[in-house]
């Protein structure tokens, strides 16, 4: 049973590169931006974004509907991003070290101000990790510029409930952030 893949995945290499290219041109920048927000490192964000597109190519979700393709892609991307963040947390505060390393590379900036900023960024990511997964995904994707209908598609929720869930997610986020 190959799901619906035979129906929707074009067989020839040329066809497959063209649908992938369309999807790529439409979503690359934003997928990359979503991941950068989460991991804060360009090389890692690029690697994860490429992984998301590879999965798109390999898993070929329902391509009949371009909206669901985008939704699938953002959902995979945001999952990859959070997984990477969690793995990093397990690697013991790698982030703070990486950021301090970053600061040393850029000595022209005001160190005190930069350390403070780095701490705040760390706090935002830590707070996101404490939320319910759907709330965290919703916030990151919304602040990456996804519309309500795109969010609904990506997270499998009713478009009419996006507003309510956003208010709830922000409340959760504020509580988690101030508790840190």
């Amino acid at each position, binding site marked *: 049973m190959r799901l*619906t893949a035979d129906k929707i995945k074009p067989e020839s290499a040329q066809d497959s590169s063209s649908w992938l*290219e369309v999807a790529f041109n439409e979503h690359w920048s934003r997928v990359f931006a979503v991941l950068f927000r989460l991991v804060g490192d360009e090389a890692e964000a690029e690697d994860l974004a490429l992984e998301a597109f590879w999965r798109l190519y390999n898993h070929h979700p329902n391509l009949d509907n371009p909206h669901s393709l985008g939704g699938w892609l953002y959902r995979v991307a945001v999952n990859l991003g959070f997984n990477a963040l969690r793995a990093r947390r397990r690697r013991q505060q790698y982030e703070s070290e990486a950021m301090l390393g970053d600061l040393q590379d850029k000595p022209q900036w005001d160190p005190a101000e930069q350390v403070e900023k780095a701490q705040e960024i760390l706090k935002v990511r830590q707070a996101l990790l404490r939320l319910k997964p759907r709330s965290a995904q919703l916030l990151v994707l919304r602040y990456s510029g996804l519309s309500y209908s795109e969010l609904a598609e990506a997270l499998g929720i009713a478009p009419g409930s996006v507003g309510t869930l956003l208010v709830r997610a922000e409340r959760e986020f504020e509580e988690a952030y101030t508790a840190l």
Partner: protein
Amino acid sequence: MHLTEGLIRTYLDNEMAAPQKDQVRSHLASCPQCQKLAEQVAGQARQSSARLSMIDDPHLQSLRPNTAHARLQARIAEKEKTTMRQKILSARYRPAWVALGLVLVLAVALAFPSVQAIANSFLGLFRVQQFTVVQVNPGNLPEQLGSSTQLEQMFTDNVVVEEYGKPQDVANRDEASQLAGIPVRLPTRWDRQPVLKVMPGGEITFNVDLQLTRALLEEIGRSDIQLPDDLDGAAVQVSVASGVTAMYGDCEFDPGQARQEGYDPDDPRLPRLPDCTTFMQMPSPTITAPPGLDLPKIGEAYLQLMGMSPEEAASFAQTVDWSTTLVIPIPRYGTTYREVPVDGVNGTLIIQESQDRADQYLLVWVKDGILYSVTGPGDGTSALRLANSLE
């Protein structure tokens, strides 16, 4: 009637259609209570926005799309080389639980050619005649193998997989029998018509690279497991003949519906098919390997890998006839099994218990050289009914 936070938020985000938008606007203009709520909602959104914008980088420059696209193509080319492993391990490739059974057999046979592969010392041939279930604690072995670079290399360098075609839909039993080359049996006491597919056979060949296998064991932290030296260079060939799958009920996995139910594309677990029973039959796969290998020793290594203590593995390995027995490892917790009389022979019924979905069963037996399996939801009662009405 006052406005809800969600409605207000939708309005503020300019995500509301015109008629409703006008209603909300005029209500807000005349309702101080809702105005106050709207200020709170807007205030909280501003606050969160300010915090979340910390993780933006205004100077961020994405790769130029052309460069990124080239890298994607390179990654695809690279990964396609290794899809062999995914093909074999991919649960989506075959009907749900049957896949799981095959995957277990193949993954184990492939990762550890040593296992049953190393057939009896005279013929050098393994053919399934019986099953033995062994309860194990595999721990995170599947994840470890899944992310192992050594295993990946082993597959890329040493393993050749050939599939004889693609799965084919067939209209009836005669067509299935003809295409698969076996007399296909179907249940008479079953109230639904099956969807029949003929699954192609295939062949997997490889030479055991002991050094690589040891490197793999080391990678997953099991360098304590000893493998006999005579295993090195052993040529192993696994032949799988065509089989026939009969699916009853709702067995098509619908990605759209799955998403509604919160299906996670990253979740490797099998999709929920609450109303799907799959009956599979195929000639026993055969594995050929050089004669003279120390089978119990290799079986012992395999059992240890699956989480048995060295003593337990050694004594169990001695009780198994490794040249005819397919050893099915099942997790010690959450899975039960028992011997059952089925189709005139002894079969094994394995039940996987689940907290958040229906239990799943796998019933397997061998008769006249044909391997049968039935999988589906429930406790297996219906499977026995199906199996006992075959003709």
